[in-house]
């Protein structure tokens, strides 16, 4: 009787098929996995996505460039400022705009805040799925502080549509800078909370047992599957778009890229934690650099590109050229170059790419979003094969699968 039990979890009899359906507390977002189980061991799995397909790429063919920013918000909605900035960087590459340094530094602050916000959700949900609800409640408070900073800058909490092609819509108010410094305070702000969270989880025996050797992937397989972002770095490859093809003046900043070794859930958790520390350091550096601008330079928050950046409203009502530019931009009659550009940024989940083909018309001819979640979700079947059902749940949440980005 005992020799029928081959490996832990399996019962050596015929398999059962269960549906980890689109609505399930563990699937954060709607995607379906049909698992074939031998006892509790997973033999095979088939994934179905598309339950939130909103046809972004088709909608984008109908909208002028500045109207596509709200669409990009809703890709990886946990870190929407990164998507917005990435799209603006792609447009600026197409249009050939040069940005002043201060705008670049402000963008870096916003993007790193968004990265922290994304990793906060991912790591706290890994905790929730392994049974530890406390970390989630602690870290959601920090997310509320980040939301307050976004609200001060752009008015919205989650789907921010922050920034414009060519810079920002308004200069950051003094209140925003104050909130940012309060957030970064060593003793009472986010670094203290992050250290508290790490103390709860990183050397916690139960958490380590739940996540070590769960869902590992080797570096070659990860590269073949098109992994990017923290999942690839946990497997051992130090590919980070910020370092590799720097955008928005990242080359002037000093940051390290944390890399794991086995690519299992524990490594992914650690890599994300370390990236949050790196983000804090980047924001501090950017803040110091922004403070160096004094006087007139401190008022710069957008590029000098009247063809693509809306003029101030007071000018629109009084000056002729401003009125004409305003009309042309809003009606979509500005000159669009004919060409194709591929530009990518380091999103919360990896390389978020925008492939934009413009035919000179008002709207893009073709816009493809290279969505990291969509591409690395294919590896899920391989990651969970042979592990147990509860390991599949942890793997799913540690991969940070955001359904909005997967289906697009």
């Amino acid at each position: 009787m005992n020799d029928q039990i081959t490996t832990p979890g399996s019962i050596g009899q015929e398999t059962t098929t269960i549906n980890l359906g689109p609505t399930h507390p563990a699937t954060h977002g709607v995607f379906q996995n049909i698992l074939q189980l031998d006892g509790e061991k997973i033999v095979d799995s088939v994934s179905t996505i598309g339950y939130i397909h909103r046809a972004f790429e088709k909608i984008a063919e109908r909208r002028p460039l500045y109207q596509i920013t709200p669409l990009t918000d809703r890709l990886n909605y946990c870190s929407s400022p990164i998507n917005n900035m990435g799209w603006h960087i792609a447009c600026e590459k197409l249009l050939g705009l040069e940005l002043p340094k201060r705008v670049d530094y402000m963008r870096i602050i916003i993007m790193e805040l968004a990265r922290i916000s994304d990793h906060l959700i991912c790591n706290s949900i890994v905790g929730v799925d392994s049974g530890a609800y406390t970390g989630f409640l602690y870290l959601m408070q920090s997310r509320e502080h980040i939301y307050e900073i976004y609200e001060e800058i752009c008015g919205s909490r989650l789907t921010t549509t922050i920034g414009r092609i060519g810079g920002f819509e308004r200069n950051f108010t003094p209140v925003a800078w104050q909130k940012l410094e309060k957030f970064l305070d060593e003793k009472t702000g986010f670094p203290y909370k992050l250290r508290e969270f790490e103390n709860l989880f990183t050397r916690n025996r139960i958490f380590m047992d739940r996540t070590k050797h769960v869902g590992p992937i080797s570096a070659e397989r990860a590269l073949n599957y098109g992994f990017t972002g923290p999942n690839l770095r946990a497997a051992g490859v130090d590919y980070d778009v910020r370092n590799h093809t720097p955008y928005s003046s990242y080359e002037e900043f000093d940051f390290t890229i944390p890399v794991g070794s086995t690519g299992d859930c524990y490594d992914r958790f650690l890599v994300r934690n370390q990236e949050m520390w790196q983000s804090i350091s980047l924001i501090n550096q950017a803040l110091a650099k922004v403070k160096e601008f004094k006087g007139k330079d401190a008022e710069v928050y957008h590029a000098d590109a009247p063809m693509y950046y809306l003029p101030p409203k007071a000018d629109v009502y009084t000056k002729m050229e401003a009125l004409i530019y305003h009309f042309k931009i809003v009606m979509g009659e500005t000159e669009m170059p004919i060409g194709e550009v591929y530009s990518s940024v380091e999103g919360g989940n990896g390389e978020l790419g925008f492939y934009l083909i413009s035919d000179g018309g008002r709207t893009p001819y073709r816009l493809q979003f290279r969505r990291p979640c969509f591409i690395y979700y294919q590896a899920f079947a391989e990651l969970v094969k042979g592990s147990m059902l509860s390991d599949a749940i942890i793997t799913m949440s540690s991969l940070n699968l955001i359904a909005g980005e997967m289906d697009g």
Partner: protein
Amino acid sequence: MSRPVQFNNTVKFEGIPEGYMGEGFMATNFEKVVGLARKNSIWPLPFATSCCGIEFMATMASHYDLARFGSERVGFSPRQCDLLMVMGTIAKKMGPVVKQVYLQMAEPRWVIAVGACASSGGIFDSYSVLQGIDQVIPVDVYVPGCPPRPEAILDGYMKIQDLVASESLRRRTSPHYEDLLNSYGIQ
């Protein structure tokens, strides 16, 4: 010697239905009592599909605590829940799933459509998005916003509480309600 009876005067009694009170008993309208009990112990099913789901997570978290309204326990099984909170875009592929989940809920059940996408399709006027979940299931409260602030979600939730408190016990078997369900193809 018995201890004298003490009344706790500092607790404010809110929301007790009007009725006739006497020594050790209270006579009131049964519907009102049931409504009071139900409205303060709703078990929601968070059907979170996209961005509104993240705002719901913020509502559940400690800052905008939903648990103080009685929803400490969010359930994920429709058989055990009263309130279906649909948060996020529902694509046409997902429509049958929403209907399945709604059918599995036991009466009395309420539905709240959180967000612009669940109410009317939102900014996604495309071939693949269901333009509002009221195309497939009857909805009680719509919360607009993209995404609505947690305060707005709580406001919608409080309106559901008003509906729950004031609902007649005979509503679910009335012909009016059956006509409503039949118009959606639900028996």
